[in-house]
């Protein structure tokens, strides 16, 4: 019996002296392993009488359980200590250092274009793509601007050697769009609702306010009863969505050969809200986009009977919109290719 007490004391002492799991495992093997002291006691029992064997066996088993429990406790204790050590070994990082914002960027025109497209898509408009090199017919003739019309003076067009031109306005796509969807309108009653964003070109000297290359977004809607009232509704709705606030709009007569009546659309100044400030030259209004009811001759040229159908069209200056929205003062920054300027525009849905 002494042997058991000695072993118990020995185990207790050794465990108290152990500080790592490796040593602990050695202790476990030394006592509970196949060749361990406790196992040896059990093996030695075969020499005892059945009675002795019974009582001694019970004692040894008790010791075995005691040893196993103590070792398990010690394991738990050591593991906890190890986690504590691990935690303590990690310093508190200085999270206040400058962040790394390296990431890609969209061109600001892409951002405003996407916003406008999303709004019109949500109202059932298709988004059309159109080329940049167009014919005189597309850019002028089909838009009720015959040769020598004074309206051609208004725009200094870039002509190419083959007689084609770089489109001076997105309206250059109007005729093609009317022809593309006209059949479906006439035969199936599907209204034409399309926007076509694109790049336009004017042969003029550049400065902070003038560019020879800029973006517009044209929109048309044609159906049986499209009215001026509808036009104002769509313009106001779209602009309020773009600027994410209720925008006041006003229409003034504007002369453009491809619309009748034609309008200049002004919006309440975004900076002062209409009270007058230097941005709006103290008028409270900003001139934003020409629009109007599509001229009967333009509808006719697109194969649509103006007696039966009416429609509106507008031309929104995307470049101007981007400048207003992001406070870009020099229009030339947009085509500068400068990453210092243009890498600032992250997603802005």
């Amino acid at each position: 019996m002494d042997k058991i007490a000695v072993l118990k004391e020995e185990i207790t002492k050794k465990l108290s002296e152990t500080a790592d799991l490796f040593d602990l495992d050695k202790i476990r093997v030394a006592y509970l392993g196949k060749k361990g002291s406790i196992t040896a006691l059990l093996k030695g029992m075969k020499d005892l009488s059945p009675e002795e064997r019974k009582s001694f066996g019970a004692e040894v088993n008790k010791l075995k359980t005691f040893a196993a429990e103590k070792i398990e406790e010690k394991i738990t204790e050591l593991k906890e200590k190890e986690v504590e050590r691990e935690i303590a070994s990690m310093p508190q990082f200085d999270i206040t250092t400058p962040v790394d914002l390296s990431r890609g960027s969209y061109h600001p025109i892409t951002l405003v274009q996407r916003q406008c497209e999303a709004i019109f898509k949500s109202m059932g408009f298709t988004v059309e793509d159109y080329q940049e090199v167009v014919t005189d017919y597309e850019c002028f003739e089909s838009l009720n601007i015959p040769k020598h019309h004074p309206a051609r003076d208004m725009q200094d067009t870039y002509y190419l050697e083959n007689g084609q031109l770089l489109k001076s306005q997105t309206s250059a796509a109007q005729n093609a769009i009317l022809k593309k969807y006209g059949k479906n309108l006439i035969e199936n009653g599907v209204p034409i609702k399309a926007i076509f964003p694109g790049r336009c070109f004017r042969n003029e000297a550049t400065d902070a306010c003038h560019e020879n290359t800029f973006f517009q977004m044209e929109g048309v809607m044609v159906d049986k009863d499209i009215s001026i009232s509808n036009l104002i509704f769509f313009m106001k709705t779209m602009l309020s969505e773009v600027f994410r606030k209720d925008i006041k709009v006003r229409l003034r007569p504007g002369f453009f050969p491809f619309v009748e009546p034609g309008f200049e659309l002004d919006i309440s100044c975004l900076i002062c809200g209409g009270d007058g400030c230097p941005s709006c030259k103290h008028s409270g209004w900003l001139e934003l986009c020409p629009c109007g009811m599509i001229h009967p001759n333009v509808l006719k040229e697109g194969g649509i009977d103006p007696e039966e159908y009416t429609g509106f069209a507008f031309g929104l200056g995307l470049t101007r919109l981007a400048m207003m929205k992001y406070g870009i003062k020099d229009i030339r920054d947009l085509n500068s290719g400068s990453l210092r300027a243009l890498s600032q525009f992250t997603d802005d849905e």
Partner: protein
Amino acid sequence: MFLSMNWIQDFVDLSGLDKLELIHKFSLSTAEVENEIFHKGSDISGIVVAEIKSVEEHPDSKKLHLLKVDAGNGELTDVVCGAPNVRVGMKTAFAQLGAKIGDITIAPRPLAGFTSNGMCCSEAEIGISDDNSGIMDITDDVANGTDIKDIYEVDDIVFEVDNKSLTNRPDLWGHYGIAREFASLAGRELKPLDVEDLKAYDELKKIDMKIEDDLCQRYSCLQVENIKRNISPVNMRIRLYYCGMRGINFLADLTNYLMLEMGQPMHAFDSRKVEKIRIKRFDKPFVFRTLDGIDRNIDENTLMICNDNTPVAIAGIMGGLDSEIVDDTTTLTLESATFNAVSIRKSTVRLAHRTDASMRYEKCLDPEMTDVAIARFLYLLKKYDSDVKVVSSLTDEYAFHYDTVTLGFDKKFVDRYTGIEIDNDTIVKTLTSLGFKVTLDNNNFSVVVPSWRATKDVTLKADIIEEITRIYGYDNFDINTTRSPLYPVRVDAVKSNEDKIKDILVKKYNLHELHSYVWAYNDELKALNIPVENNIKLANATNPNIETIRNSIIPTQLCQVKTNASYSPDFGIFEIGRVVNGIDKNNLCIENKKLAVTLFSKTKDIKTLYFELRDMLAVITNDLKHETLSFKKAEPAHSYEHPINLNAIMIGEKEIGTMGIVHPVVGKKIDKKASIVFAEIDMSEFTQAENCAIVYEEPSKFPPMDYDISLEIPSGVFYSDLAECWKNEGSAILKNTKIIDTYDTETVHSLTVRFEFSSNSRTLSSNEVQEIMDKVIANLEKLGVKLRNA
């Protein structure tokens, strides 16, 4: 164009109405008014008529005079004055003590030893002309002490209308037409013009005049003599000055006045120089000296006014120096005419000389106006110079008449166009106030367009809508959405791909989207040793640096990379833009939309960067089309392409673009140490290439088996050659192969390839895998590939 409210009110009574509000309404309903409104005379007060009673030389000053003036207050006032034109008995404008001129209040002021108790003013000081040569010389018979504002129209509201917004309105180029708009907007009557009855002179001789060219629509003329007056009435001069014109002399001022009043340009010739008026063009070019003394080249398309065969004026643009009114002119011939607008416009462009007259003629003036203008001119002439004598009858040839425009429409048409309810009475009233003759019969309108709107402006029913709605006021519109039926919206495939590609490049690869111009940048490219390739050019480029349309975005991007080389050691840029690749058989440009990507790195070696670019394109293709890209060696076609590492990008058998490493010569010009790679993909080829559907493969329930082999690859053997070795050997159970390790020395290129086998129906045996691998290895060995540690 500047407009005077006083002048407008000659023709419409606007009393009791807020003028600024009316101008605002005009801007919203008719034509754009510039923001700044000028309140003329508002900064002037206390200036009266005074008579100079005595003039003494200042003892110490050669310039100054000591005056005693009678300002009508019963005593003489001492004034020190520096004007050279002072004389006894002269009446002038006198700022009394307490008078205000701008920010200055007149107070007693010591001046070279004497006190001046007021100030004699020049016209410029009062703001009624730019004449600052001396004090105002008042010749009208008015009592001393009269406030000059009581006798002259110093107070006025002047506003400016943007000429561009009048392009389509020939009738608005004079105050009378503007007054018609104000009358309509204010709901007041437009007064008729006071004119002289020209019939009274019908018995007098005709002028020898003949239109010999159909570019002249109408020519009216009249001869007058005995004009004594030289200086215009003050009020006339004030109006002209406020409207931006300098006073010259009575006759010249009156022609200008008529033009600003009626929009009808007029010209006065010395009658001796136009005895036989002929309007025609010449067969040959010649030089003609206009009255501004400039010699101008006249060609055979320019319409001229001639004295028989001697040109005396460029029709509609400017008179000649030789036929101008001179000191000994006794009889003058007044011209009032209309010409073909396009012809005037073209002549103006050819001569590069735009005048107040030509600006108006370009707008298609109403020919009905020529004789009325003469009648009005004569009325004013006689009003201010009663001795004038008319010596000819009105001589008038009316060669071209515009058709009378009559438009019919019904109420429904108006309702449909406007989307709101405007009642018949309002429609009739509005149109009538603008000079249209309206008949209404049971909701059917018939409208005769007045001549001044019928030259080109109003020709369609839709034009009538504008007239009705602009006066109704767009601010008064109820706004409503449409009632159109709904249908699904079609999506343009190129457009949709474009958006997705931008998202991947920006969000996954941190690339920056840039825009650039559609032409090649000559100078910038030269600096990079990249010649501009031959392509279609702009016909009217003003800058030789931007003449040739680009055939690729890559050269532009290389310029942009150079610009940004110091921005960051690593960056990538992209653009989806357009290029032109020559001309097709119909002589039309072949325009293509391209995705261009260029990567720049000072930290990565060129191979790593090139493979990054390759994987980027493969990810895009896989993401959008579930297709695999393949690459083929390409032959360089452009100076900036690397001769060896240049590849065609393929989807299946379709070539969609090119990628490559930049040629070292160009690369070094950009940055000596950086790695630069580029790719350009044709958006429409990309979009048209086949789209694969997503094919779902159920994950196997049986354990997969991997088999790795390490291979030593001889030079000239590509991975695509290796792939051929197992392409047909794997049966259905070889699911995937991938490179898990590469090991390169100077002499040895080796790869470890993992073969992943699995089956959905059974557990694979190592024997069947080994069998396949044996065949694969045999194939590889045929290529000269050696197994390492096999």
